[in-house]
C-alpha cells in the first residue's frame, strides 16, 4: 500500500489548474556562483553557502556548498527557482541579504562582517561548555536523547524565568527548571507510550526520572538569564569541507518523526523511517518527490533502526513492538517476524548485527543477531523459521542499580562474535554466537559516558561513540585491548553513532547536539569537522552509500512538539574516494 502526500480528489483538480498557471510563470534555470568576502574584500574560505530552492525546482529543498580558498563558490547544477541564499560562518555574518537573479548566470558577491554574538549560529553544545564533565555527561545522557538541549525553546524559557520578578532568583530558577524536567518527563512518557493501549500517561506518575533533581540543579546553575548572548565557540578541529563538498537536504512534509535514512534501489531513493507511524517514506533524490509505504504490521510498530542488506534490501527494527521487517525495494514486497523470547516475552530490538560495511551480517547459520534493549540481552532471529532466542547479559560490577539499555550491536568478520554496548551502564562487551557465552566486558570509567551505536572495521577494530562524555573508544577485539579513548572536537556534541567507511578508511561520527559530523582518521588519530547547515541538526546514524560514497543521514528529533527540522540528507564530502570504485551493486 502506498500513497502520495496530498491525495484528495479535489487536490487533483486544483493541481491541474495550478499546473497551467505554473507553465505560464515557470522559472528559468540559473547557474549560481559567486564569492564570499569580508568588509575589506578579503576572501573567506570554507564559508557555508546554502540555497533554498523554490518549489519549482526538482530535487533537494536546500543545497549547500562551501567557498574555496579564494572565497569562490559554485552550485554544480542549474537551479530552477531560488527562494533564498544565505551564507553562514561561526565568526562572520552576512552584511545584508542577497538576491539571486531569476534567470541567467548569477555571480553573487556576499559581504560578511565579523560576528559579535554567536547565539543564533552556535550549536546547542556551545551552551554546555562550562559544565563539569561528569555533570555534563549525566545531563546529555538524560536530556539529549530525543532532541537538542538547550534548544531555542529552552533558551526562550530561560528568558521567561529571568523576566519573572522575584527576590530569590536562584530558587525561582531551580523551581522553574525542575518543572521543565517534570514536563519533559510527561512528554517523553507520552511519546514512548504511543503504543500503550491504556492511553496517555498519568501526569502524577510520569515524573519518574531518577536523576531529575540533579538535572534541574545543573540547569538552574548554568542556564541563567536570557541566554541570548554567546561568544568564543569554535568547531574544535579543522573543517574538512572544500569547494566540492555538497549537502542536499530533503524536507519530509507533514507530521512525522523521521529517525534514520538509507539509499536503496535503482534509481536511488532515500528511504526514511518514521517512528511516529508505521510508515517508510521514499524520496526520489532527483525529483524530490515523496511517497510512503506502510509496514504491514499489526498495531504500532514504529520503524526505527535501518540496516541495509548486502542484496540491496532493507531490514527495519521497531520502536514500539517486537516486529522485525524486511523490505525488497525493487519488488516492494515485505516480510515480517513478530519475535518473542522462548518464554513468550516481547523483545525490545534496537540493532541488528552490523558488519564492517554497515550492512546486516549473519552468523554462519544465517541467523541475524540483535540487541534487546528491553531485556538487557542479545539474541538471534532465524529468518527462515522465525525462531528467536535471547541471552541475558551478565551484571556489570558496581553498576547494578540502573537500567542497562543494551543498545548497539556489531558482528566480527569471522561471524563468531557480536559486540554490544550498554547505554545505561557505561559498558560494552562481547558474546560468542557459537558457544552462546558472554566473553569480554569493558567498564568505562564514567557510568554516564553513554555508549550507543557501534561500528567495526574489516580488521575487527571496534569503535564506540560515547554520547554522554563526548569521546570515542578505539578497541582491538582480536587482542581485547583498548587502543585509545579520544575527546571529540566538542565534548558536548553527543556523538550518537559512528560508521566505518571502508573505502576512505575513516570513521564518520554523527553528533546529536553540535550541528556537525566528525571524521576520525585512525592513521593519524585526528578529527575533522563537517558543519551542517541547520540548527537543531539532531543526528542519529550515518550510512555510507556503497555506490557513491555519499553520507546518508537525517535529523531525528523524536518528540512531536519539538521544533527540530524533519529532513533527510545526502552529503558528498568533496573527495574522489569512490570515483574509481566499480558500481557493481
Amino acid at each position, binding site marked *: 500500500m502506498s500513497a502520495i*502526500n496530498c491525495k484528495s480528489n479535489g*487536490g487533483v483538480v486544483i493541481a*491541474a489548474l*495550478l499546473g497551467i498557471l505554473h507553465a505560464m510563470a515557470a522559472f528559468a534555470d540559473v547557474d549560481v556562483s559567486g564569492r564570499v568576502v569580508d568588509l575589506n574584500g578579503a576572501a573567506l574560505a570554507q564559508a557555508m553557502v546554502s540555497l*533554498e530552492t523554490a518549489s519549482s525546482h526538482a530535487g533537494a529543498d536546500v543545497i549547500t556548498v562551501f567557498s574555496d580558498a579564494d572565497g569562490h563558490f559554485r552550485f554544480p547544477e542549474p537551479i530552477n527557482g531560488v527562494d533564498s541564499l544565505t551564507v553562514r560562518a561561526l565568526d562572520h555574518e552576512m552584511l545584508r541579504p542577497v538576491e539571486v537573479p531569476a534567470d541567467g548566470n548569477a555571480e553573487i558577491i556576499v559581504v560578511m562582517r565579523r560576528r559579535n554574538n554567536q547565539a543564533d549560529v552556535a550549536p546547542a553544545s556551545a551552551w554546555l561548555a562550562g559544565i563539569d564533565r561528569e555533570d555534563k555527561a549525566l545531563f546529555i545522557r538524560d536530556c539529549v536523547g530525543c532532541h537538542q538541549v538547550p534548544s531555542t525553546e529552552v533558551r526562550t*524559557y530561560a528568558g*521567561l524565568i529571568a523576566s519573572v520578578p522575584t527576590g530569590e532568583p536562584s530558587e525561582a530558577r531551580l523551581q522553574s527548571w525542575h518543572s521543565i524536567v517534570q514536563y519533559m518527563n510527561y512528554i517523553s512518557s507520552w511519546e514512548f507510550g504511543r503504543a500503550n493501549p491504556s492511553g496517555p500517561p498519568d*501526569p502524577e506518575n510520569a515524573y519518574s526520572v531518577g536523576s531529575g533533581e540533579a538535572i534541574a540543579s545543573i540547569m538552574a546553575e548554568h542556564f541563567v538569564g536570557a541566554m541570548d548572548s554567546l561568544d568564543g565557540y569554535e568547531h574544535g578541529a579543522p573543517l574538512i569541507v572544500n569547494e566540492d563538498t555538497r549537502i542536499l537536504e530533503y524536507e519530509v*512534509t507533514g507530521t512525522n518523526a523521521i529517525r534514520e535514512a538509507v539509499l536503496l534501489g535503482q534509481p536511488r531513493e532515500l528511504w526514511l523511517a518514521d517512528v511516529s507511524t508505521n510508515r517508510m517514506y521514499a524520496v526520489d533524490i532527483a525529483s524530490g518527490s515523496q511517497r510512503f509505504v506502510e509496514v504491514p504490521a499489526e498495531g504500532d510498530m514504529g520503524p526505527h533502526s535501518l540496516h541495509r542488506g548486502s542484496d540491496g534490501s532493507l531490514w527495519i527494527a521497531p520502536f514500539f513492538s517486537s516486529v522485525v521487517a524486511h523490505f525488497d525495494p525493487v519488488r516492494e514486497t515485505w516480510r515480517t517476524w513478530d519475535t518473542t523470547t522462548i518464554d513468550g516475552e516481547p523483545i525490545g530490538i534496537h540493532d541488528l548485527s552490523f558488519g564492517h560495511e554497515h550492512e546486516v551480517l549473519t552468523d554462519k547459520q544465517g541467523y541475524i543477531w540483535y540487541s534487546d534493549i528491553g531485556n538487557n540481552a542479545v539474541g538471534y532471529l532465524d529468518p527462515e523459521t522465525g525462531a528467536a532466542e535471547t541471552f541475558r547479559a551478565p551484571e556489570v560490577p558496581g553498576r547494578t542499580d540502573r537500567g542497562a539499555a543494551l543498545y548497539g550491536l556489531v558482528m566480527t568478520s569471522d561471524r563468531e562474535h557480536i559486540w554490544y554496548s550498554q547505554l545505561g551502564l557505561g559498558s560494552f562487551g562481547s558474546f560468542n554466537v557459537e558457544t552462546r557465552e558472554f566473553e569480554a566486558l569493558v567498564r568505562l570509567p564514567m557510568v554516564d559516558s553513554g555508549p550507543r551505536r557501534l561500528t567495526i572495521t574489516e580488521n575487527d577494530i571496534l569503535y564506540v561513540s560515547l554520547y554522554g562524555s563526548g569521546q570515542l573508544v578505539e578497541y582491538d577485539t582480536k587482542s581485547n585491548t583498548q587502543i585509545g579513548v579520544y575527546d571529540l572536537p566538542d565534548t558536548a556534541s553527543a556523538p550518537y553513532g559512528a560508521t566505518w567507511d571502508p573505502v576512505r578508511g575513516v570513521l564518520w561520527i554523527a553528533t546529536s547536539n553540535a550541528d556537525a559530523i566528525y571524521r576520525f582518521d585512525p592513521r593519524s588519530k585526528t578529527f575533522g569537522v563537517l558543519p551542517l547547515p541547520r540548527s537543531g541538526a539532531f543526528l542519529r546514524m550515518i550510512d555510507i552509500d556503497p555506490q557513491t560514497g555519499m553520507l546518508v543521514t537525517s535529523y531525528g528529533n523524536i518528540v512531536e512538539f519539538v521544533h527540530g527540522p524533519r529532513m533527510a540528507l545526502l552529503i558528498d564530502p568533496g573527495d574522489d574516494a569512490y570515483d574509481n570504485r566499480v558500481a557493481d551493486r
Partner: protein
Amino acid sequence: MIIGSTSTWMRRTACAVAGIGSVASFLFAAGNASAQEADGAELAAGKRCNACHDMERVLLGPPYRAIAARHASEREVMTEVLARKIVHGGGGNWGVVPMVPNEHVSLEEALAISSWILSLGD
C-alpha cells in the same frame, strides 16, 4: 521558506491550497462558541496541556477551574490574553514558575482552548 518537498510544484501548491481550505473551515467553525469550547477540551488533551494542568488538582500549573474562577469577571479580555499566554508562555500570576511557550499551538487553537477553560466557570 521551506514549504516541503513533495513531488512537484503542483503537488506542493495543491497541498497548500488544501491546507488553506482547512484553516478556513476551522475559522468558520470557530464562530460557534459552544463548538469552540468543545474543540478546546479536545485540543487541551491533544496538545499535551494535561502535562501541567488538571481540572481540579494542582500539577505543575493551576487547575483549569481555578483559572476560570479567577478570571470569571473579565472573561472576554482574558480569552484573548490566555490564548496568547498559551502560545508564548509567561509567568508571575501563579508563582515564580513561568508557563512554557507552546508554539505548536496556533492562535486559533489557543483561543478555542482558553474559551473552553473560561467556560468552566459558568
